[in-house]
């Protein structure tokens, strides 16, 4: 009898211990699950860096709306373009990639310097879209060593945005402004200043974008086809600089020191025109009170043989960094900017962005008459000019050369001869980039 009881007692003790152990194990399990969940959700959170909230960021947000992959989350962070460049350089050169975004917008004219300097930092995304669907002039700057790294975004095609009211006041009609030369532009600027008191355009003396726009109408660049620095005997550059100095010397320019002041210059109604890439349209349209006061003419050309009334500025493309989440990021870009023609229609209508995705140009949105621009078919016009843009190879050192040139230009404005300016700039650039 007593043995019987002892057996039962031990059975109970074993049951007790088992129960306790099971309870403890249960707790461990739930903790493990929670950790796993965190990891899983961590990878799907992607970030993207871009500038210009009216244009690039708006386009990215629109792409996000048009993309509904499960568990996909994208945080878009606005940075100044210079900031992105600096942060990318800092991050990529340190090699850690810590704090880097998954998706980054890079200007075409800078792209090669990144692709060549940090070949492993970017993830080739050629498999996620068909490169033949994009304008060929965008493929060269976005690829390197046979791999496609960038997904071409906006064209960068330039136009001559002007205030119809101010120019009419100065006595100019639409026809007077179509297919003009930069020399005509300077003349018009003088008239406008005299008659309306408004400077013709806003410029940041540290940003020589206007010179590049002028130069490219003739198909030339700071470097030649062989990649050699070409400043001294660069006739288009010389002509462009002459026009630049004339604009400055005659006080036809409103100087600004940063991008927000640049935007303020035309949004506040100070300046009469904005010769810039088509991406500026979104910022112009941001000031709704000026609706109907704007039109866009073809870009003025340099008065040289073979020059076209078309140019390119600040076109940019999307890149995916070679870090965790790259597949998800590339998938996202491929499904939106890379292949979705319907998305491009809303991109045109909502953001005014003109992509280089050729199948999209057949859509109705390209015929859209923009009320803000006096019912002009702005997108269609840009797509026409886009085809005219003289092709150039931007090379690696566009901005490096410009930094040197910017300093020399101040001397040029102060009276140094053009020959000396270019010769000194050439010498410095050769020293720096050889």
């Amino acid at each position: 009898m007593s043995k019987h009881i002892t057996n039962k007692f031990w059975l109970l003790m074993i049951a007790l211990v088992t129960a306790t152990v099971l309870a403890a194990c249960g707790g461990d399990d739930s903790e493990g699950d929670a950790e796993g969940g965190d990891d899983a959700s961590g990878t799907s959170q992607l970030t993207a860096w871009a500038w210009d909230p009216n244009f690039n960021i708006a386009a990215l947000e629109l792409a996000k709306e048009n993309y509904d992959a499960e568990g996909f989350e994208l945080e878009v962070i606005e940075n100044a373009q210079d900031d992105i460049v600096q942060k990318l350089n800092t991050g990529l050169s340190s090699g850690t990639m810590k704090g880097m975004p998954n998706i980054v917008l890079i200007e075409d004219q800078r792209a090669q310097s990144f692709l060549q300097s940090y070949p492993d930092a970017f993830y080739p995304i050629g498999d996620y879209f068909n490169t033949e669907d994009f304008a060929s002039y965008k493929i060269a700057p976005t690829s390197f060593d046979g791999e496609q790294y960038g997904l071409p975004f906006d064209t960068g095609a330039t136009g001559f945005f002007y205030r119809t009211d101010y120019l009419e006041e100065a006595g100019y009609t639409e026809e007077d402004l179509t297919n003009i030369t930069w020399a005509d532009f300077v003349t018009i600027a003088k008239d406008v200043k005299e008659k309306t008191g408004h400077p013709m355009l806003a410029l940041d003396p540290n940003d020589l974008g206007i010179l590049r726009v002028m130069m490219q109408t003739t198909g030339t660049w700071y470097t030649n086809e062989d990649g050699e620095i070409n400043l001294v005997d660069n006739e288009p550059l010389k002509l462009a600089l002459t026009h630049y100095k004339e604009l400055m010397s005659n006080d036809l320019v409103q100087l600004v020191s940063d991008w927000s002041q640049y935007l303020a210059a035309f949004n506040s109604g100070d300046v009469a025109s904005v010769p810039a890439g088509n991406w500026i349209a979104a910022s112009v349209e941001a000031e709704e009170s000026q609706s109907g006061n704007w039109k866009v003419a073809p870009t003025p050309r340099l008065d040289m043989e073979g020059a076209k009334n078309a140019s390119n500025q600040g076109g940019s493309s999307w890149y995916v960094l070679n870090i965790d989440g790259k597949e998800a990021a590339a998938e996202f870009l491929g499904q939106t900017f890379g292949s979705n023609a319907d998305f491009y229609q809303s991109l045109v209508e909502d953001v005014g962005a003109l992509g280089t995705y050729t199948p999209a140009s057949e859509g109705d949105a390209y015929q859209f008459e923009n009320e803000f621009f006096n019912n002009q078919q702005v997108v269609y016009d840009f797509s026409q000019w886009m085809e005219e843009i003289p092709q150039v190879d931007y090379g690696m050192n566009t901005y490096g050369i410009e930094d040197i040139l910017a300093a020399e230009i101040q001397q040029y404005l102060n009276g140094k001869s053009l020959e000396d300016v270019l010769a000194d700039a050439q010498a410095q650039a050769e020293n720096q980039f050889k």
Partner: protein
Amino acid sequence: MKRMLKIIHSNNLFIKIFLVMVISIIAVSLSITYSSIQMSSNLFMDTFSITNSKIMNQITERIDNFTESTVSASLEVETNGVMKQALLENHPTTVDESNFYYEMKYEMDRIYAEVDPNDANMVIMSNNQHVFNMNYIKWPVDGNKLANSDLIKRVKESSNDIVYQFENSEVTNGVPMIVASKALRLKSDYIYGYLFFSLTERDLRKFYESYTSAGNNVMLITPGGKIISSNLKERIGDTSEKLLNYAKSFEDEDLEYRQVNVFDHDYTILSQYLPSLDVYLVNLIDQRVVADNVIDTSDIILISVAIVGIAVLVAFLILRRMTVSISQLVNQISDMGRYQFNKPLKVTGGYETQKIAEAFNYMLNELQDYVQLLMNTQEKQRKAELEALQHQINPHFIYNTLASIKFMIKQEKQEIAENTMDSFIALIQNSLSNVDETVSVEQELENLKNYVQINQARYGDRIKVNYLISPDCLDLYLPKLVLQPFIENAFFHAFTKKKNGFIQILIARRENQLVCEIVDNGDGMGEEQIDNKTVKTKQKRKLFSGIGVKNVHERIQLLYGKDYGVEIESELAKGTKVIIVLPVNEHPE
């Protein structure tokens, strides 16, 4: 209810022990659970606070880094001749202005790159409201707004210091940020420009955000009590005097951390004054949230509840087993006194109860033996007493009888004297010489006749005696002197009022009983006299043997059991009937 009470009563022992065990198990596990949770929480909070004070130091260091780079950048700007010149000069033409812009930007780029003040933006404004902005995204400054803002006023008022201000006004487009401002002055105190370092709250938060977690919050509070930065975004802009006072108290007392109640919540607070920014850095730790993440209280409680449950169950089962056998034992014992004194206890249950039952049964047996022994002894004693009585004839009877015979001889009643003498001799012979316990009916009858003859000879024959004896009874045996006392009784008590009467003696066999009846038609007795059979034995006048009526009854029952004995029926003035029931004995004992 009664049933319940009964159940409780019958399980009293079990309930008591069980309750004591349950209460102590629960008390022990409660106190252990409570103290272990308390201990681990306290330990955790202690280490947590130590870690957090280190974190506070790191945050302070980062903020100091920021202010240091701000200071060094501002020094560079102030001592930069190019910028001073550019800012002091007028720029009437676009070309001049272009140079000015270029130079400013160039110099600023250099300084900014050198200093790189942690996500801060550097802005310089000239007296003509030219604004040079190193990162317009961080703070898109409008020259006009800035020039007319309170920010500038405050900077102008302060002499040479860097003024740190929290702004989320129109100047900063509503974005909360810390703006470090400095007026660029000549020695003559003429202000030639303003330098600003702006750090948005978002970027400032990055200094400490990675150290925060749910329940572990960091706040920056101005000396006015305004919360200018916090990982709790909804608190930014709030003013809390209470919190400020707590934060200040760290300056006066040398505290590591303390418990406070702010925002309707209990927190552990750590605080440090940052003189560079003139703010208090406060670390608010919600103990419950933080500790809950580390110590799974519900798990501990669950485990102790499970242990208590199992322990109680085990205690219940074991106790039940133990106490049920004891209760059964108690039940058997309590019944025993009333009904089953001879029935031994069932030997079941645990070792202890078995032993108790065995001992009890053993004791019971002993007791029974003892009682039996006692009864036997008592019976023997009684017998001995009776024997002693029956073997003696009352001496007075002998004197009186002899005296009566003497008188008869004197009166020359020779025949009567002779007969009486014969009877007396036979009577004495029978009483004294016969040592047997029992005698035959015939012999007893003979004795009775002798006795009656003597009495009639002495007192006259006014009382007649008739004998009606069934012949088959004559050979049966009965105890000695069973009938005699009743006849004696009848002679001397039944006829005190009536002077004449008769006594009838009937002896017959009825089934297995020998029934003797002594019937008289005398005075009869009252109820009380019948019940109290001792009345007659109180008579001092002992006539023959001294054996009382009561003795007879006791003696018969002693000899043959409760089925036998003496019954008396009587009616006043009509007579008395004594019935003596005896077993049929065919042999003497």
